[in-house]
């Protein structure tokens, strides 16, 4: 089992802040996104946009990073930051 989290407009689009993701074997990020989005092609497109960054277990990765997601990982999808 792993977990996905959505922030900002991605949370609005997903309609929730996150959910468990059944995961028995490591997956590439692209495959993980497909599993997360299921049949929601709009959400898949949003998660796959180049501006979206990913954090794995609380570590924000550089744009374009392509991590392997392992069972137990918490994966967060992060729209562009707009602090302050």
């Amino acid at each position: 089992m792993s977990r996905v989290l959505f922030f900002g407009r991605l949370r609005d689009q997903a309609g929730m802040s996150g959910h468990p993701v059944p995961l028995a074997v490591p997956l590439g990020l692209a495959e993980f996104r497909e599993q997360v989005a299921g049949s929601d092609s709009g959400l898949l497109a949003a998660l796959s946009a180049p501006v979206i960054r990913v954090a794995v277990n609380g570590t924000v990765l550089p744009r374009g990073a392509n991590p392997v997601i392992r069972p137990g990982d918490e994966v967060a999808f992060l729209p562009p930051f707009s602090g302050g």
Partner: protein
Amino acid sequence: MIRITDRAFDPEAELAAFRHGLRVSGAVVAMTGIVRPESDALLLEHFPGVTEAMIAAFADNLRTEFGLESAMVIHRVGRMLPGEAIVLAAAASVHRKAAIAALDRLMDWLKLEAPFWKLEETGNIRRWIEPGSTDPAGDRVSF
């Protein structure tokens, strides 16, 4: 000192406490970000735990790089109204140049690299603000 809070805070009271804790600094430089009057309200979201840790790590590096005595960030999250403080960042050092340069760097980083997401409410319209996107309003909402 790094703090994220969903309650309104008094930036000058926090700054006074910061200054009174200093021992060798000759310069305290601080920036207060204020919700501007264009929108009815802002909602700011963060990544609990992660945002705090990232700010703390950046502030630690900043202290070393600029030889600061101390650095502070207080960042508001949740719903806030025009005139309220969003952020207080401060840097203290023996000489002013280091403190000013460090604060400038810190604010750039908070704006671009710290996980916060901002939603603007105007009337019934809620809109996520994304600086760096093609949205011309990206830098319109606060500072």
